[in-house]
């Protein structure tokens, strides 16, 4: 069971400042997906993490270095 995300803005364009695509969770659309459909880990960074709200915006890290990622997380 997974909660999918969707683009924050209409077209999913990268932010002009940081260059990341911003997404938000679709908490009202939980999907059931087979395990084989999971293609790997995704690195989502919460914007304004200090606020901690459910409706927060997440940055899709498209320059992820998984070796560093797994060391940190």
């Amino acid at each position, binding site marked *: *069971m997974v909660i999918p*995300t969707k*683009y924050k803005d209409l077209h999913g364009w990268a932010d002009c400042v940081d260059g990341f695509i911003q997404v938000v969770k679709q908490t009202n659309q939980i*999907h*059931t997906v087979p395990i084989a*459909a*999971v293609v790997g880990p995704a690195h989502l960074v919460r914007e304004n993490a200090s606020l901690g709200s459910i409706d927060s915006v997440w940055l899709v890290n498209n320059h992820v270095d998984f070796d560093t990622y797994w060391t940190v997380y």
Partner: protein
Amino acid sequence: MQETLPYLPLQGWYNIDSANVFNLLSATDQQRSTCSAHLLRLQTIQDKPIICPVSQQVYHFRETHVRGVCRSIKLTTLRAASEDFRIPNFGQLFRAQIEEDWGHKVSGLVLGYDQNILFDSIFIELQNGLMYYRQPFHCPASVEHLGLDCKVDYTNANQGIMPEAHNIWVKYTQSEENNLDNTFQRRIPSVPVLYFHWTPPNQILQSV
């Protein structure tokens, strides 16, 4: 040789093939030739299959699979899982997935035909994560496996003990993509809520 040729043709003697070879086409023929070249190129592109570039895979990885049974909960009913993981329509989602995987007949025999029932008699096996295989970027000649955790133990009783779940990329099929709002080339970053395993009883599978 080409420089002398413009003086050779006589007035009224114009052959388009020869003029094309010697780069002496009239303006009208040049335009026509360019248009036909464009059309030919478009036709060639349309006839060719669209090939998506994919990175070369050195090893044949095992598919991502469940890593292990959750120790603290193991088996739970659909109703309990629905409440613990805050999935109000778990019953409908479960039924839809069983119908897709095993067919309408198995779904009916196991779950009954009442669409609104929240099943107390159906037990699912909770899994605490996935095993994912990959080639490390800094050492591409090797293969390593990593665990993708999920907050399976995240219940009201032990809330806060488990770490955050690892977010995952989920690949959808072309038909499923039509129902989705937006994707990254049919992939969507998703947050796992619950990993579980369920198989219909052998008696039912044998009778079908």
